[in-house]
């Protein structure tokens, strides 16, 4: 049987967008150790933060930067290319501290900076609030492009997260971008409704050029959002309608006095 720590870890990693603190409060209330269980859950918090692309405020700055497996340094330190900063993250509190200047050392530094510039322009056009980053990966032979957009509206009982992660090798002239787009929406007024999507992306680009890479990505994201919007309509018109009709085919509500009523009415009367 799974241990309390394993079960509580699965709750932490399953927290919906913007509701980690609520899940943590519930976990503390449910476990006999109370708050003392938290240190044993540190690995779960770290996995949550890296897969959910948690954003943290840099000390003394207003901008939020994301953390992921791609911008991880030693220990709990991560780096951000745009602000040329590295920082330490407390995975439980999701706070950054001990910021230091960080200079990117990569043979692809120029490409990374151009990608950031194009990505920034793309992000401003389509995301009201988001954080993003471009990082060298796989021993500097490839690049990861990562973007996260969150909208939290707990007063209206909904929260949402859009994540996109793309990687591309940069050792040849043409290249293939592969990645994933994930959208998670949680609605919980008098209920619990979740939208979870996962769309694998594979795009080939003729040259390793920042603006053409980002415009291919932008087009793929647009196509996906349009496809998702169509899926809402086709699901409503298809499977949903097939499950339960809004009205019977006769367009009449049930005549409850008549359905099986006569015979049974007599039955009941006779039985008294």
């Amino acid at each position: 049987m799974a241990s309390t720590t394993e079960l509580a870890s699965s709750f932490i990693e399953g927290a919906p967008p913007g509701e980690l603190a609520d899940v943590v409060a519930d976990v503390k209330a449910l476990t006999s150790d109370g708050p003392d269980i938290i240190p044993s859950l540190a690995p779960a918090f770290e996995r949550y933060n890296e897969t959910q692309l948690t954003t943290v405020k840099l000390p003394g700055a207003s901008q939020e930067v994301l953390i992921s497996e791609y911008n991880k340094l030693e220990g709990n330190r991560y780096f951000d290319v745009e602000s040329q900063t590295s920082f330490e993250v407390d995975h439980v509190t999701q706070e950054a501290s001990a910021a230091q200047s960080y200079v990117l050392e990569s043979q692809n530094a120029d490409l990374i900076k151009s990608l950031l510039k194009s990505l920034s322009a793309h992000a401003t056009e389509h995301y009201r609030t988001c954080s993003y980053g471009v990082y060298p990966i796989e021993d500097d032979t490839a690049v990861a492009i990562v973007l996260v957009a969150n909208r939290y509206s707990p007063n209206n009982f909904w929260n949402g997260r859009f994540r996109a992660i793309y990687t591309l090798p940069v050792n040849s002239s043409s290249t293939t971008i592969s990645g994933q787009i994930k959208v998670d929406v949680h609605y919980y007024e008098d209920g619990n409704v979740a939208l979870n999507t996962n769309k694998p992306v594979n795009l080939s680009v003729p040259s390793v050029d920042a603006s053409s890479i980002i415009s291919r990505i932008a087009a793929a994201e647009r196509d996906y959002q349009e496809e998702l919007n169509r899926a809402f309509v086709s699901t409503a018109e298809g499977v949903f309608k097939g499950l339960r009709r809004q009205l019977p085919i006769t367009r009449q509500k049930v005549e409850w006095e008549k359905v099986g009523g006569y015979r049974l009415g007599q039955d009941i009367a006779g039985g008294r």
Partner: protein
Amino acid sequence: MADAQFDSALDLLRRLNPRDTKQNLQAITSIVPDLTEDLLSSVDQPLEIRKCPKTDRDYLLCDYNRDGDSYRSPWSNEFDPPLEDGTVPSERVRKLEVAANEAFDVYRELYYEGGVGSVYFWDLDDGFAGVILLKKGERVLSCYFRLAIQANILFCIGVTPGAKSSGEWDSIHVFEATDRARMSHYKLTSTVILHLANESESLGEMDLSGNMTRQVEVDLPVESDASDVANVGRLVEDMELKMRNLLQEVYFGKAKDVVGELRSLPSLSESNRDRATHLEMIRSMHS
């Protein structure tokens, strides 16, 4: 402490993925075994189907037709596996239960055109109570074609091979009917669990799952036992219509809107420019 833990458990289940309620419920009760009984009776899960050995008809399982490890079939009124002294409704309430099962069978055919239903009633000191269960599943496995008509010729402009679509609907309506003079007071709590999934090459995976709960209380005139069944029928019918509309709004309207909040399809600078132009026009009309 136990009450606070119960509330935390419910809060947690309201936040974690509704697709995984069963596993999460097991996880919570293995951490806090004392909560098992209370949680099992207050957390709704997708209904399981069993075949009645006596009548060969399918029926649905829930906490209300369970006695120990046995379940009572609404068709035979017998427990499976058999129980010597399983709790069954009084003769009068069983007759109401039989009538309600017949009536909701008609209802199920009219609205669900298939699926499985079961109604269970039990006695109260000053009336009776019951649960109406309805379940329907849909699975569409297809190549779907996108068609276009041009100059009266039908074109197939795209094929999505291996597109899969599935859905599962579970309705759980629990009510109490308490006797008043020539009236009955009805209290109805309804939960619908709706799971939908889509998968195709162009869409990837899309999962829309969840549950919603609503309550209503009302006094209605009662002339005979038959009108009790009709009253409950109308209450459930109205509630399901309301909830179907609500689910449609949340699953396909709200969820889509939030995706649009996260990512704007039109360029934001263009929409901001349009808005500014629009404001400028209004201003110039008033000056």
